[in-house]
């Protein structure tokens, strides 16, 4: 099925200013103002594609629709500010050391896109590939690390199982002695993994999409989706109605509610995922460290703050208020791993909402409603998939055919009993 371009409008394309060291010097000398990163538009009465959700998934989808397929009459509707949902709350870990061949191929494509993103978007997203280490504290965890390493290597992704001595060399502050409650038996080391400036990814995609003429509408909430004859007709927002044949649900935390507006029920449960950051100290931790048994992960930003995360909350909710149990638990587990850090202080905690599916894999593709597409169910692994999700969803929407990379993530798999293999994995997934 192709796409009926019903609403031919004058293009909103423009060429954005080029960012570079030279441009910094020029602007510094002249004092001239920088052009806007994206513009505000009035809502058009209709668009060819409406994307619900202005985070990295929605913005990347919009960007690739325009850049790869020339589909520019696109609106991204964000009820808050761009990147204010999961994209602004995650701990920005990028990796592709997944368990299944499908997972590895998918996330590796994303890592590849991330590696050239700054140049592609002309916006420094600060992708710091300092390595990702998943600790194993039991032989069953070590077996799972070995499983992941072997699948990774077979797909050309650099991962290897390392022993406690190598773990100690990678992260000198870790207590790798046998005196701990859960001694470290080894780990999975993934050199290409790392961290990124998550806001910059959002802004980079937004700026580039805007340059292609995509309309970014902040403060715009979808309150209804019009379906007639089993197909999308339009959406209703707090700022007015839009006619459109295509709606892509790129929300996280709200995906069930948005899908319900189109009459589609999902196998999703929403749970908060909390994170915290400490005051800055001199950089000492180069690698991202994850412990599956202790359900905690730690990284250090270039500014020197330690960023912590853990598993999702033990019960579903839509609250991003955070809990004391989370910071207590994370502190306990971080000190189990690195006992010398007790004097570091937590500066702030926050939470995002994670849409968990039965098989720890997203839901991408068509639905029983014609023109209603899903890019949801991103659990705790959504940010790292932003680029590849955008690229593949754009391809699906523009061409009508489902890219191989996402064929296994279809909604129909649950009714047909075809779970994705990532459910086999043990570790806390980030």
């Amino acid at each position, binding site marked *: 099925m192709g796409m009926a371009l019903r609403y031919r409008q004058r293009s909103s394309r423009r060429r954005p200013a080029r960012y570079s060291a030279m441009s910094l010097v020029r602007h510094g000398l002249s004092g001239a103002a920088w052009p806007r990163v994206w513009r505000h538009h009035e809502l058009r009465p209709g668009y060819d594609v409406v994307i619900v959700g202005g985070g990295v998934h929605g913005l990347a989808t919009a960007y690739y629709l325009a850049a790869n397929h020339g589909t520019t009459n696109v609106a991204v509707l964000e009820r808050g500010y761009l990147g204010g949902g999961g994209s602004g709350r995650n701990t920005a870990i990028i990796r592709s050391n997944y368990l299944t061949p499908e997972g590895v191929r998918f996330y590796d494509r994303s890592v590849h896109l991330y590696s050239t993103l700054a140049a592609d978007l002309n916006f420094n997203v600060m992708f710091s590939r300092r390595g990702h280490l998943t600790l194993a504290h039991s032989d069953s965890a070590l077996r799972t690390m070995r499983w992941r390493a072997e699948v990774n290597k077979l797909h050309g992704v650099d991962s290897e199982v390392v022993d406690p001595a190598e773990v100690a060399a990678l992260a000198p502050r870790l207590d790798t002695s046998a005196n701990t409650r859960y001694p470290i038996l080894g780990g999975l080391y993934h050199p290409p993994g790392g961290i990124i400036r998550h806001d910059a990814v959002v802004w980079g995609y937004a700026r580039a999409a805007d340059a292609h003429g995509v309309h970014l509408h902040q403060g715009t909430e979808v309150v209804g989706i019009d379906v007639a004859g089993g197909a999308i007709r339009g959406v209703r927002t707090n700022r007015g109605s839009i006619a459109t044949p295509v709606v892509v649900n790129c929300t996280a935390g709200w995906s*069930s509610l948005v899908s319900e507006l189109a009459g589609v029920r999902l196998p999703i449960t929403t749970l908060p995922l909390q994170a915290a950051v400490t005051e800055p100290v001199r950089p000492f931790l180069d690698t991202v460290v994850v412990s599956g048994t202790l359900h905690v992960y730690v990284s250090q930003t270039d500014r020197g703050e330690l960023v912590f995360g853990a598993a999702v909350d033990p019960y579903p*909710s839509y609250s991003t208020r955070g809990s004391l149990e989370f910071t207590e638990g994370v502190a306990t587990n971080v000190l189990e791993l690195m006992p010398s850090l007790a004097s570091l202080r937590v500066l702030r905690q926050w939470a995002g909402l994670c849409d968990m599916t039965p098989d720890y894999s997203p839901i991408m593709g068509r639905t029983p409603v014609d023109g209603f597409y899903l890019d949801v169910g991103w659990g705790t692994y959504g940010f790292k998939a932003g680029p590849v999700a955008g690229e593949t969803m754009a391809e699906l929407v523009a061409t009508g055919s489902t890219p191989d990379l996402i064929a296994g993530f279809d909604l129909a798999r649950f009714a047909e009993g075809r779970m994705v293999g990532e459910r086999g994995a043990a570790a806390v997934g980030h």
Partner: protein
Amino acid sequence: MILLPCPHCGPRNTDEFSHHGEHGERPDADRVTARQWRSYLYLRRNQAGWTTELWLHGAGCGRYVLFERHTVTNEVRAAHSTGGR
């Protein structure tokens, strides 16, 4: 740390309990199609609002309990014992 009003033990901290999903009727496995069975297994209302859900007071009375909880504010407005002794 929210308090859950266990009908057997009174209000107790959440860390004494474990959450066991939205409450739903288990269909008759013999009379159901695969699609219907899997709807029971996987589909969720996942509302941002009042939800009836099953919890187990593992560190207390050991009973499964149904609470009506608001998933945005975390208020609990009702608690019911499940059947059985």
